[in-house]
């Protein structure tokens, strides 16, 4: 299925947000995730969040420095 990730259309067979982000190399403990308008704090259990066709997924990675 196709989803929009970081503003770009990508193809994926992942069925959960956690599975997709794992494939994308994103550490969910160190990222804010927005999926179809729903916001998830770092460390949220995204294995229960289904990834649907045409989903819009955005990630903001947390990086050290302040």
């Amino acid at each position, binding site marked *: 299925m196709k989803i929009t990730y970081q503003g770009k259309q990508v193809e994926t067979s992942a069925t959960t947000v956690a599975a997709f982000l794992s494939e994308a190399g994103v550490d969910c403990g*160190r990222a804010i995730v927005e999926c179809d308008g729903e916001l998830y704090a770092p460390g*949220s259990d995204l294995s229960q969040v289904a990834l649907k066709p045409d989903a819009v997924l955005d990630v903001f990675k947390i990086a*050290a420095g302040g």
Partner: protein
Amino acid sequence: MAANPYLSQNERKALESVCVGIAGAGGLGSNCAMHLVRAGVKRLVVADFDVVSESNLNRQFFFRDQIGMKKVDALKENLLRIEPTADISVSYAKLDAGSIRGVFEYCPIVVEAFDAVDAKAMFLSSLMGTGRRLVTASGLAGWGRSNEMRLRKMGEGLIAVGDGATAVGPDAAPVSPRVGIAAAMQANAVVSLILGVEP
């Protein structure tokens, strides 16, 4: 004279009425607070557990004669030099999931200005979903690449600024201009939220 005489009375009133929380008083927090007070924000709650050191002077809003002072006390001193009538509450404490909501209980807007990833994650997981507007920053190390510094609105209550990638580490130092860009973007987002315009 008000710190910012260029605003309308309504704009000034709005900025003076909102209490803004600043979690961390380092490169992001000290500079963000400075911008906010210069813009006309008068009520701040600032929390930090550190003291000013010489290595902070390359980017943080402190001065050489403040080395050794608690950052919250030094920052309060500097902010009051800009606006003597500002109401600056300080908390000299290392915030954790058990204390952070209490410290910022009366702050409808809170700025995340920590440096450590774990602290940033704690801030977000503790305060997201509490109804507060949060302004976080990540990805500000090094120099150049100004156009990679951007602001993202996420969900209803979160604004994230920075390049979202460049971490401070052995290959990327924290340097004043890029840290300052992020801090100014955070302050600009707060002012926009208070004045009801697109951040």
